[in-house]
């Protein structure tokens, strides 16, 4: 991909005009109830958890949250999830199995929060358990990347039966700035890094990391189209015998 095309997508994925998590949740689902807290330590606003309906069907909703303004951004560490957030996700993932609720995860995070408290709280352990718990729940699980998806902090919610992306989103092991500064010792080469990293939806689709790329959601019509697509897929997954669902999920991640 050309430098401009790839870096344009990086910037669009990070743009202020990107749909925010609550607008996305309320636009796609009805009857949304936010459920707070990890029952261990705290409540991380960078990870929204809750339940709602997808075309009438009860689902568990997990979404990273960058915040809608500066104050919210500071509270959510601009979408950098802390251990409390991942543990909230883990709690609700397990609950989804009890009530046979499919899981829909909505991802827009630069990565897990890089803080001292997060390290003390076991950031690595929390992400590891989130990956493991998500892979293990015998209910349909869809992950949709709608902005940035950076590193293990994104993977924690991106182990669904399918992983989808919006057109202006990215998924990578490190940010282009990080890649350029680590491998080329020059963080200013982010645009060149973006072109090389194969982090755009079309490249990731071609490489088999992503199952589907959808148009951006901006209007009520596009939100409703997304609802329809999610519902069709969840309905199809819900029809599979559990053993088949789990075998397909295992195969999806075993191939890499």
């Amino acid at each position, binding site marked *: 991909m050309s430098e401009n095309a790839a870096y344009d997508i990086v910037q669009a994925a990070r743009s202020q005009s990107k749909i925010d998590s609550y607008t996305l949740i309320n636009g796609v689902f009805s009857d949304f109830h936010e459920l707070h807290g990890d029952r261990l330590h705290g409540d991380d606003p960078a990870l929204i958890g809750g339940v709602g309906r997808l075309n009438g069907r009860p689902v568990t909703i997990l979404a990273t949250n960058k915040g809608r303004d500066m104050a919210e951004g500071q509270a959510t560490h601009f979408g950098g999830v802390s251990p409390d957030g991942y543990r909230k996700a883990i709690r609700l993932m397990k609950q989804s199995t009890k009530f046979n609720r499919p899981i829909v995860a909505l991802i827009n995070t630069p990565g897990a929060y890089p803080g001292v408290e997060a390290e003390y709280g*076991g950031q*690595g352990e929390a992400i590891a358990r989130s990956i*493991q718990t998500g892979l293990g729940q015998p209910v349909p699980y869809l992950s949709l990347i709608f902005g940035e998806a950076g590193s293990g902090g994104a993977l924690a919610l991106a182990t669904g039966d399918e992983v989808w992306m919006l057109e202006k989103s990215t998924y990578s092991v490190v940010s282009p700035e990080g890649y350029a500064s680590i491998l080329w010792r020059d963080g200013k080469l982010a645009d060149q890094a973006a072109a090389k990293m194969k982090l755009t939806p079309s490249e990731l689709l071609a490489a088999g990391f992503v199952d589907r790329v959808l148009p951006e959601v901006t209007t009520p019509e596009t939100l409703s189209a997304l609802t329809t697509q999610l519902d069709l897929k969840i309905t199809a997954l819900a029809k599979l015998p559990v053993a088949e669902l789990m075998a397909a999920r295992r195969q999806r991640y075993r191939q890499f």
Partner: protein
Amino acid sequence: MPAKFNGLDKSTLAKRMDKIPSDLYVTCPYCKQSVYHQKLGPFQECPHCGYGFRLGAAARLKIVTDKFEAFDAELAVDPALVDDQYAEKLTKAKQHSGLPESVVTGMATIDSLQVAIGVMDSNFMMGSLGSATGEKLTRLFEEATRRRLPVVLYTASGGARMQEGLHSLMQMAKVTQAVTAHGEAGLCYLVVLTDPTTGGVTASFAMEADITLAEPHALIGFTGRRVIESTLHIKPPADFQRAETLLANGFVDDIVARSAQKATIVSLLKLSQGGA
């Protein structure tokens, strides 16, 4: 006083000191004391603070196992994922470590106890998690599940391998699945976290074991210190990612010096054989 009894002046002494092979003395990366190399002993431990100096996989296996038979010894990264810059790094890593990848896996006996074992080697691209690393670890857990054996894993890693992009990230999910299946078969997974264990390895299989041991003062964390410093413009406390801190915060079962590891591992595994 005859001149020959005079002490050497400082500059002469400094020049002579320079001629002493530098590998005779090493500086402990943890307590910063200078240690006569031979004083490190067979376990390569600092006599002052107990820090375990970084070991290559071969040296590690020698210390821990009585017999070892390698799996997938030639397995290496798919050439389709390797560009020129990465190829150069791989060549250097192979020369530096004598290994084709950042982990060695196989079957071993530790005192007569059969185990599946994996040892990561920080001499190979800082033990980074490439797709071949992940494949070898996945096969190790799969084989251990088939043979109904416990897994002992020594981690040492700087995290994901940037050069492989999402191929690297996906290893975290792939190995995790194999760990889960092994655990669901009622088998024990014991990990020993060694210096350093960070990034994507910490955020996956390093933190998924039934029993989590660590070496004294080992650096263990997710986000690297420098990333935290440059992102938040703060200076984290000196020991914020050391094994002792993780023990205090509840993320490690125990800290075990190398000299005690063999006996501890065997005892713990024998206490954990009653699974389904």
